[in-house]
């Protein structure tokens, strides 16, 4: 199970990557996609939507289950990965490449409160 050192993580299995333009890309972890199984539907938030930290803002559905995706920090959605609507399986193939949405963090929002890779691995017993 891959947990890249360069990313931050939430206890609800989102990964977050700080982009060079100051936005944060958000996706679901390898652990999450493996647990859910093959995804058949992905719903991403509309650009412009303002999110509170922890707010449910996207949905991933596999053949067997639906799961909410939460905002890791407060911010405004600036982009969605529209290609996933027709190819939800990309999240299974490349969970850390297939970001779901990008947000511009609200003032004061930072990645520091999120889990780093060792902490995420430890929290979920990932080898």
């Amino acid at each position, binding site marked *: 199970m891959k947990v890249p050192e360069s990313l931050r993580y939430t206890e609800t299995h989102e990964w977050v990557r700080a982009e060079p333009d100051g936005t944060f890309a958000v996706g679901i972890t390898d652990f999450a996609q493996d647990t859910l199984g093959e995804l058949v*539907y992905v719903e991403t938030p509309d650009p412009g939507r303002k999110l509170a930290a922890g707010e449910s803002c996207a949905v991933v559905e596999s053949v067997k289950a639906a799961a909410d995706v939460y905002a890791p920090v407060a911010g405004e959605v600036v982009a969605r990965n529209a290609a996933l609507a027709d190819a939800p399986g990309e999240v299974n193939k490349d969970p850390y490449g297939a970001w779901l949405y990008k947000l511009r963090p609200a003032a004061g929002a930072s990645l520091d409160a999120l889990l780093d890779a060792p902490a995420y691995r430890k929290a979920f017993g990932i080898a």
Partner: protein
Amino acid sequence: MAEGDWDYYRRMRRTPLFDAHRAAGARMVEFAGWEMPLHYGSQIEEHHAVRRSAGVFDISHMLAADIEGGEARAFLRRALANDVARLPPGKALYSCLLAEDGGVLDDLIVYFAGPDRYRAVLNAATAQADLEWLGRRAPAGARIRPRTDLAMLAVQGPRAREQFWAALPEFRSASEDLASFCSMERNESFLARTGYTGEDGFELMLPAGDAPEAWRRLCAAGVRPCGLGARDTLRLEAGMNLYGQDMDASVTPFESGLGWTVALEGGRDFVGRAALERRAAAFQRLGLVLQERAGVLRAHQAVRTARGEGTITSGSFAPTLNASIALARLPAACAPGERVEVAVRDKRLAARLVQPPFVRRGKILV
């Protein structure tokens, strides 16, 4: 299941193919007390393999039970809602086992194996209760033998028979002329042209010790191992009910799309008959096709129709249709072609009512 519940693990049962599944990289899940393969990497690819070529399923969690003796026929005519007197030798019959109130206790296939000899295949979750139910009612002249010594494989798909014969040529000559829904025996093995996918193929019962070699030969011949995940989406597309989900003891066969399996002609007295004749069907079973790509239909979602509320009993993504479909329990006045709304998470999505099956022999029918 609580963490550290070792009793739970000890109670979980494994089929003779457990090691083969693990070696093939299966994701294992609990199903009706059995540790079974969910998939071997991709349940969607396994689904397509069965629609387009051939796949093999371990269905050894299901229980074969032989009903034998001079009174076996009379007993089954009384115990089952369908009539075994319809069967020529070798032929299979799909039937419900009913409670006195007409509710469905199980659905099963019964084969007329030979003179005074029938073989029923029972669902894993209900097998024990079925055996107790049958045992309580069986006369001295009808003996019930649970065949826990047998493993069961289903080989399904347009190329299933051809690949089955390539892997197990000893069955070829005796099964080449086997018609649909018919069975034959060869030594200790029992082969039937039946299945739960909507495709052609065989179901093979064989001594448990012979199962790993048969599995290995089938896989070597190019038959793809398939798990319970693909089995569920295949049967859903084929419009086949899953016991415990699409019907149970609270509904009658007429309320769950199985009215065609109830043989009322001739006045035969079977368990549940009187109740069925009294009890008007409160629901009917119909299929749904989701009209927008905005979620996935799933069991327990509410369906709003022009004629009242209904509920989805099974729903999933259907790989062959590349859309979400469902089976639903709906007001008796609903009809195929009508539009309905389904509550999917916080949205109401449009769906179309259809008469299942959705797919048969590789062809989309809705």
